[in-house]
């Protein structure tokens, strides 16, 4: 088991390496110039010579392999360099953006688990009844509704309900500094994204529970005279959770870096926003670090899901 885990963990390294190489190459193929963005701004009168000096200062005149190796060596020491646009430490940029994105992802995941597993199971147990129909309508609506649109509707709804006297805060403060202010800002994007997220997990829960309920071992358990509660909780749900865990884990990884429009709707300076801005402005250093971070989250979540598989299903052995 431990050897498997170590092997899986070590496999993360080449995966992350190849991801960064690909991103490094792709970023340099996109037209646009970070130096022009940096110096020209709103039409500043900047000479070609000044642009060349800045390009030299940023190390952009070096060969691509040298640039990559320099960056990779820094990344190995957790030094992701400085933003080419602002000169800020990339680590600091991430440190500012990560907590909000992570918090929304955690809150949305919790919401999703709380909604999806009980409702999905209930719908499966009451298949083709009004309960099932309601849950299915609720989940299909969740899948069909973009999170950012729901977010905008939430803000408009709040303004209408409060007669334009209240709206969520638009400047992020970490939860450890002001929990109430923080929650009154982030609960809305968490609800907006958590709804779609829970819809995905709810449908998965329903279908896998339905599948498991038709298995021989469930019939056996019932024939043995076990209480229905025990049959469902201990035998059906535990086995049905494997694909649900996969969906939840993958969605979590997506939420950490992928909430671009929702972050814009609620004015959250999160990772998704930082990512898109950096790509648009061709801020290579920030993009490379963010890709590495998001790739790490995805690979790590996969790793965690594998561990959970073994825990949930004793038949799975990595020995």
């Amino acid at each position, binding site marked *: 088991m431990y050897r498997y885990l170590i092997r899986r963990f070590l496999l993360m390294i080449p995966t992350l390496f190849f991801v960064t190489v690909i991103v490094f190459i792709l970023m340099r193929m996109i*037209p646009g110039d970070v130096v022009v*963005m940096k110096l020209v701004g709103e039409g500043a009168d900047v000479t070609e010579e000044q642009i060349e000096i800045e390009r030299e200062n940023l190390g952009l005149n070096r060969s691509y392999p040298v640039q990559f190796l320099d960056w990779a060596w820094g990344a190995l020491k957790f030094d992701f360099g400085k933003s080419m*646009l602002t000169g800020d430490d990339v680590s600091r*940029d991430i440190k500012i953006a990560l907590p909000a994105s992570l918090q929304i992802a955690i809150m949305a995941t919790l919401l999703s688990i709380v909604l999806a597993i009980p409702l999905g199971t209930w719908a499966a147990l009451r298949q083709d009844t009004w309960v099932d129909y309601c849950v299915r309508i609720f989940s299909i609506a969740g899948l069909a509704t973009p999170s950012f649109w729901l977010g905008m509707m939430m803000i408009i709804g709040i303004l209408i309900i409060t007669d334009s006297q*209240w709206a969520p805060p638009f*400047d992020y403060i970490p939860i450890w500094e002001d929990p109430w202010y923080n929650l009154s800002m982030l609960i809305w994007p968490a609800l907006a994204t958590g709804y779609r997220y829970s819809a995905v997990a709810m449908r998965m829960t329903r279908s896998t529970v339905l599948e498991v309920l038709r298995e021989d071992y469930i019939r056996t358990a019932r024939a043995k005279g076990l209480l229905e509660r025990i049959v469902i909780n201990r035998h059906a749900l535990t086995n049905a959770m494997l694909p649900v865990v996969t969906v939840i884990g993958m969605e979590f990884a997506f939420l950490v870096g992928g909430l671009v429009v929702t972050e814009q709707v609620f004015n959250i300076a999160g990772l998704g926003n930082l990512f898109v801005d950096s790509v648009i402005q061709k801020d290579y250093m920030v993009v490379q670090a963010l890709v590495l971070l998001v790739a790490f989250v995805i690979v790590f979540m996969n790793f965690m899901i594998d561990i959970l598989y073994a825990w949930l299903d004793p038949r799975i052995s990595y020995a």
Partner: protein
Amino acid sequence: MILRTFFAAVAVFFLAIGLVLMPLADAQAAKRGGKLIYMIPSKGAKSLDGHKETSFATVHPTAPFYSLLIQVDPLVPGAKKLKGEIAKSWKISADNLTYTFKIRRGVKFHNGTPMTSRDVLATWNKLVFPPKGVLSARKQMFSMVKSISAPDDYTIVFKLKFASPALIWAMAMPFNYIYSADILEKDMHYYEKNIMGTGPFKFVEYVPRVRIKGERFKDYFVAGRPYLDAIEGIFASKQSVYVAALESGRIHSMFRGLPPAAVEDLLRIKGSALTVQRSVWNCALNVTPNSYKKPFDDVRVRRALSLALDRWGGSGYLSKRAIVKTVGGAVFPGHPLAPSRAQLESLEGYSRDIKASRAKARRLLKEAGIPKGFKFTFRNRTTDQPYKVVGIWLLDQWRQIGLNVKQEVLPTSKFWDSLRRPKNRMTDASAYVVSMDFNCQAVVNPTLDVSKYVSYSGSNYTKIEDTVIDDLFDRQLREPDFDKQKALLWKFQQRLTSQARTFSTLWWQRAVVHSSKMKNWNITPSHYLNMGLVDVWLDQ
């Protein structure tokens, strides 16, 4: 007779007392305290150094922490008057070649050190003569300055190579923050990441892309100012966010400006709780054809593009949807040095008879051998207001003279890259054919307005050397006589129009919505100005 004289004297006395007390009454009405919260409609500042940056995204968060040598008077509407800030007074020599500024005593930096002419000298040397590796974004504006010296602790002297009325306004640019000489001596790049000035507010916190906070500087050199206890600027790039924030009262203002529909919506919903101030905006939206590419190397084709535009009609309906309104040439409309209405209407493309203009445009295209339905791509910036809205209008205007134009919208970085392409690559297939362009200035100054069009300007994206334009610019820059300068600027405009290498569409229109509780802030034609917030107070 004696009685009449007596009553007249009494009346004059009371009138005089009234005039003296009037400003005091205003001052008494002002309330002290409170925290002003405003939004900065940007994703963040690239750096905090005003000397280096050109964006409002730097000025809006940092201006309250700094002072200028001279400034555009924040209390005079229209940005028409200059006043000293650090400068107590100034004197210009008879030959207009020496500017002597007397500096206030008792001005302190936020770290407690006194400010003297040494700091002003270090600041202005950085602005005018930046050392290698240090960028001064407006260095070209001070090309007339020969030397700067500080003969004593409270005097600073600028000697010029040639006289120029443009200098004094360029000096009042809101980016020209006074920095500490001690700090600059140690690190010329310190101010890119840090804030330490002599302004009305003392720096508290800056979280990039999130917020900036300041508190009242107790040792600020103007007694009784600022009124506010604290300020907070929140970065927000989406219009829906700052509209919702204004509507709910989360913020007091967003100082850049809102499009007409948002203004009307807010006023309808909030009524008297919000106030709107409007002004012509010192930004012109231009069109720049690539004179190196066929068929736009033919002046007739370029002129046809300008002739097709119904500027007067467009002003009427576009101003209801976009942040553009005023018809004007290269010089800020309404400025005494700008062309008169009659002069403007005599220019090609500015006639009120749009049918005749378009007939002429079609004739020019025919003469140039351009077939009906000729296709080309118009390159634009991926920003709704006003770029994309006006872009769509342009496409329709050109359709009406038989051109078939496709709009290509680029993200800002690609857009700039496309415009700034070096001269030798202007004929490449990827070079723009016809592009949106713009000219925004921080202060109202005709010389600055037209500086974009000279051959050696970095923001002249035509990449064409026009010695006639350069000569006219140089002559008006050195011309101290107002009427002669105006005549030169008119010739400049005529030359620009006749060549149509770049031409104005409409000037922007600024509308700032703010809480009615926010008092003593005046809109200006520039969104870079009046961000010191020294006189602003909250009625709460």
